């Protein structure tokens, strides 16, 4: 977890948006990394992150009161559901959905999967924010031992009228999107992508999105046109 206090007055983020963060002044790692904001209040912004590589290690090495460099808020937002909704999170994907739980008027039924219990951070806080939280792990170390798509599928079968919000690994999101499509449920995914700029300038983070004119899809940038897309418009390629 990382809480930052912008030095200059900053724009307030809305659920689904993210920031590009970088700790340290070294050129290795060089690029900023994208992180959903977890919460934003009293002028400070909080992030929840998992250490993966160089960039997150540098963030973890920060001491209190040190400065971090960031750009944001970036990207579009989740269309805020007007009533009850379903959320599906994979591991740290919870960070992106977290702010939605507070912003939405209706409450969420959350399906949250991880490889092990250790990947599911702040479970108690999260439980307090949703109607029900169904937890799964690959190894059974927490909740049900299954893929998160299993209990979700069962629930969706009788709740396809609810909108579904998803953030997790690409294969998981692809699977959830397919289930929603079959069930006729609306589904919004917050996509993963390698990003260099975060502002739509480099075209590094693109994904193929269908529109009325073009069913094959056209490249849109995840950072600027996303990260949230209507799952039915996403062309899931080679993943």
């Amino acid at each position, binding site marked *: 977890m990382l809480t930052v206090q912008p030095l200059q007055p900053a724009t307030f983020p809305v659920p689904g948006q993210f920031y590009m963060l970088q700790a340290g002044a070294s*050129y290795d790692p060089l690029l900023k990394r994208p992180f959903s904001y977890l919460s934003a209040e009293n002028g400070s912004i909080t992030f929840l992150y998992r250490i993966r590589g160089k960039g997150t290690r540098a963030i973890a090495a920060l001491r209190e009161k040190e400065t971090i460099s960031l750009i944001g808020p970036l990207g579009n937002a989740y269309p805020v559901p007007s009533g009850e909704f379903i959320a599906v999170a994979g591991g740290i994907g919870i960070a992106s959905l977290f702010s939605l739980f507070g912003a939405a008027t209706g409450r969420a039924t959350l399906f949250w999967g991880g490889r092990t219990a250790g990947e599911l951070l702040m479970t108690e806080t999260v439980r307090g924010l949703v109607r029900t939280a169904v937890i799964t792990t690959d190894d059974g170390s927490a909740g049900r031992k299954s893929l998160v798509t299993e209990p979700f599928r069962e629930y969706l079968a009788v709740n396809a009228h609810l909108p579904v919000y998803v953030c997790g690994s690409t294969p998981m999101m692809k699977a959830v999107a397919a289930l929603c499509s079959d069930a006729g449920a609306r589904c919004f995914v917050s996509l993963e992508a390698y990003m260099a700029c975060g*502002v739509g300038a*480099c075209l590094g983070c693109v994904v193929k999105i269908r529109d009325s004119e073009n069913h094959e899809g056209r490249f849109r940038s995840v950072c600027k046109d996303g990260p949230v897309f209507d799952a039915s418009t996403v062309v899931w390629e080679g993943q």
Partner: protein
Amino acid sequence: MPSLSVNIGGMILKNPVMTASGTFGYGEEYAEFIDLNRLGAVVVKGLSLKPKEGNPVPRIVETASGMLNAIGLQNIGVDRFILEKMPFLRRFDTKVICNFFGDSVDEYVHAADVLSRTDGVHALEMNVSCPNKQAGWCVFGTDPAVLHNVVTAVRKVCRIPLIVKLSPNVTSIAHMAKVAEGSGADAVSLINTITGMAIDIRSRRPLLANKIGGLSGPAIKPVAVRMVWEVFNAVKIPIVGMGGIMTAADALEFLIAGARGIAVGTANFVNPAATVEIVEALEQFLVDEQVNDVNELVGSLRL
């Protein structure tokens, strides 16, 4: 106040700081972060006659102090650019340089013709060094005879300053610069990215969908500075230097090596305000060092 103004092949810039093509979108993307009026010039993403889809993802991967990209020259095409992006760019008091490319001499000529007749476009930058493109494509920038042909042809239709952007993936970039000069280029810019590759050792697959990509960022700066110096010693036309410029100190290395203008690429991703901060620190450096005119620095390397 020292003078920052420079003349790049007949085009007067308020300062030597430009954006590097492909790292600044069409200008809009960074307009909410910085005041584009502060820039010497905005160089837009490479344009082709027809829109281009570009490569599949992954298109980027970070390397030590650098990044590889294989965007594949995705762009909206000359027509949509003129229609949708130029009205925005015309609002600013900065020069607009259109980077463009083609996959045949004809396409180059056609694109140059249309762009150079477009109101508000001040110069063209010809990308002849496309390490991201397939097979035969690369030859424009790496074969002197081919380079001569395409530059000569474009020169005929181009009514505004023509900058030829050189590839570093050659034995002698000085020789290529001379060819560009001899074919009518008003200036050369360098360096484009150096071709590289990165491999995922578990899957044994390239980390870029396109297999190879172009290396940019601080990692390549020493190579870029050397090439600017070599070209400076070979041609009389002005040079726009780039490759790993992150700070004003980096920009100054290029100016001293012989660049009259400099372009900031990958640095924009790391710090959207990089260009403007460089303009400011450059001015401060001139004040501190009591240099009245930035042109005095150009090629001022002491040996």
